[in-house]
């Protein structure tokens, strides 16, 4: 055991014993229930769309059968023929990636090698990819947020190093808020699930900064464009 650990913990125990000046901690208050949690699914979806659009993101509803051709068209408009994507089992649209491949789009997203030189070589390739395709674990209406967990076939960079992030979800993924997901999302939202993956990211709109003269600028290091697609 490193000496500093015990030294520091000892000092803290001493400090807490020798009359801490902290006020006694009050009992934790019951949480405020937000009205949105009681609202029906349709109003939650429309709130999600409004919040996301206010922040400069886009929202789209599509029947499952059209998702593939819609996405292919989007890529074409942007002159893109390569995407960084989650693997098919992690996406809520069956056959989505095959639909892209059939139209000549290259789908990238296999695991990075852990060691060099493979790791940085593959990253250098990923860095050039302009569009990322992901699913979600949940979306939150109150803030227009997407929750994405790392996992098998779910590269973190697909929602990060790209210029456009397209996320597909279904009505089952919609919760009023992060608090509602924690309360009602079951095992998937629990602390154990959080600890089991290296990363859970809540994404709310495009990357932005106001560091120069408090002037809002979109697309700093992360995606400039976030497109959330509700598949029905």
């Amino acid at each position, binding site marked *: 055991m490193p000496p500093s650990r015990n030294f520091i913990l000892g000092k803290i125990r001493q400090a*807490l014993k*020798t009359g801490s000046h902290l*006020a*006694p*901690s009050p009992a934790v208050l019951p949480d405020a229930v937000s009205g949105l949690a009681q609202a029906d699914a349709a109003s939650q979806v429309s709130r999600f769309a409004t919040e996301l659009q206010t922040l400069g993101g886009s929202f789209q509803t599509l029947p499952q059968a059209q998702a593939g051709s819609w996405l292919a068209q989007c890529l074409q408009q942007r002159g893109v023929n390569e995407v960084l994507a989650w693997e098919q089992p992690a996406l809520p649209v069956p056959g989505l990636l095959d639909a892209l491949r059939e139209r000549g789009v290259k789908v990238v997203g296999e695991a990075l090698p852990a060691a060099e030189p493979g790791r940085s070589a593959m990253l250098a390739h990923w860095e050039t990819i302009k569009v990322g395709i992901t699913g979600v674990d949940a979306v939150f209406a109150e803030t227009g*947020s997407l929750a994405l967990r790392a996992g098998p076939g779910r590269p973190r960079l697909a929602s990060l190093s790209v210029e456009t992030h397209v996320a597909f979800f279904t009505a089952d993924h919609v919760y009023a808020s992060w608090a509602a997901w924690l309360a009602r999302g079951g095992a998937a939202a629990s602390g154990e699930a959080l600890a089991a993956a290296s990363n859970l990211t809540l994404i709310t709109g495009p*990357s932005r900064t106001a560091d120069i003269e*408090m002037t809002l600028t979109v697309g700093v*290091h992360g995606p400039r464009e976030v497109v959330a697609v509700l598949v029905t």
Partner: protein
Amino acid sequence: MTTDPPRTAGQSHGAFKARIATALRNPILQVALDRNHERRVAGRDLAFAALPAAEATRDRGRAIRLETLSHLDCYLERFAASVERNGGRVHWAADAAEAQQIILDLVQAAAGRRPPGRTTPLLVAKSKSMMSEEIELNHALEAEGIRVVETDLGEFIVQLRGEPPAHLITPAVHLRREEVSALFAERFGMAPTLDVAHMTALARAELRRVFFSADVGISGVNFGVAETGTLALITNEGNGRLCTTVPPVHIALMGLERLVPTLADLEVMLRLLPRSATAQKITSYVSLLSGPRRAFEPDGPEELHVVLVDNGRARMLGGALAEALLCIRCGACLNVCPVFTEIGGHAYGSPYGGPIGSVVSAGLFGSDFSELANASTLCGACRDICPVRIDIPTMLLVVRGQHVAAGLPPAWLRLGLRAWEWVMAQPGRYRLAQRAAALATGLLGRGNWVRRLPPPLNAWTDRRDFPAFAARPFRDRWKIRAAGKAKSD
């Protein structure tokens, strides 16, 4: 390891006053600070007005932080065990020097993960961390030939200028676009422009190369969750995500007070922090990091190290300034402070400025910084706006008391107070002094105001007039009144 004294600023009375004078004379800074004050405070008020049960949420946030600090030893042990269970490694640093050494060793060890044949200096991509400012990390790494690049846009700008951040949340709050433009033109050959989007795009391109070739990513931590060993980072730009995802090694640096017990507690704190800091309901990104990349995951860092830094916190916990450790670094008390709004962050000469910074700096770095607490009107705006209701004014008074107890106020002040004490001890002396003062201000002043007093009293009249003493003191008037009353009875 650096052998420089830990902090060079803030020591002498004269130095602090000189920095204040410089800030007050800088018109660009004054405009920037006014704008920061207006927008941030108004935005924050709107954000809290829209938060359901805002006051109860603040109470709960305070309770969570109090609970954490009251059992900090238990939560630290739980947190460390959880991080290690997730595959991360925890390092404990008693002070700044130890933290520097731990990180230096980790960065140098990362050389073993380089692609063969790479000979450029080791490269660190950093996202915002106040702790790294506190322990002067960049300086220590650079002294060993390591290249450190700040990747938050504001931090990137101030680093290029060789300055420390001027605000907890908005590091380049003191600069106009003209200065950023000139800086980028000089450093990157950018064609002259005042287009903020263009400048941002340039920084994006520069920093992208850094993210994808960095050997190590270093980040701060907004909260650590004891239950799950999770590190929560909130950012808007995405640089924090890149620093903690792309490089093969991620080092997270945190003060050991920065914990919450559970995931549910974290959710409450994250309702408060962005609203208070930037008037956002939630930031663009909330990254919850639990350990390094798992074998079944396609990307992420291969190693995760958490460096827990004490550097005076344990000592503070046992003293009268313990409550300052509740702080969640939202910066709201800076934005609302009438003194900060005039002098800005750099004048404080500490990584932590503004009201809470004056308390924390004295608590962590000692009496060299206790003078900062004098730069307050004690108006209480900081206490009112603080999301976790820290009683900052009371602690500012405690720090002032420590300042006096340490014998640090200038000699004329001590002499003056002794003279005042002598005068006040006897009614006769007091009466005499009153007469003398009324006479003096009567001679020096015009009407009810004195425009100029002789030194050293001109410290007052240089900036404002001094009210003249009443020609007939209250005691005399009272006596006359009492006499009159007795007669009419």
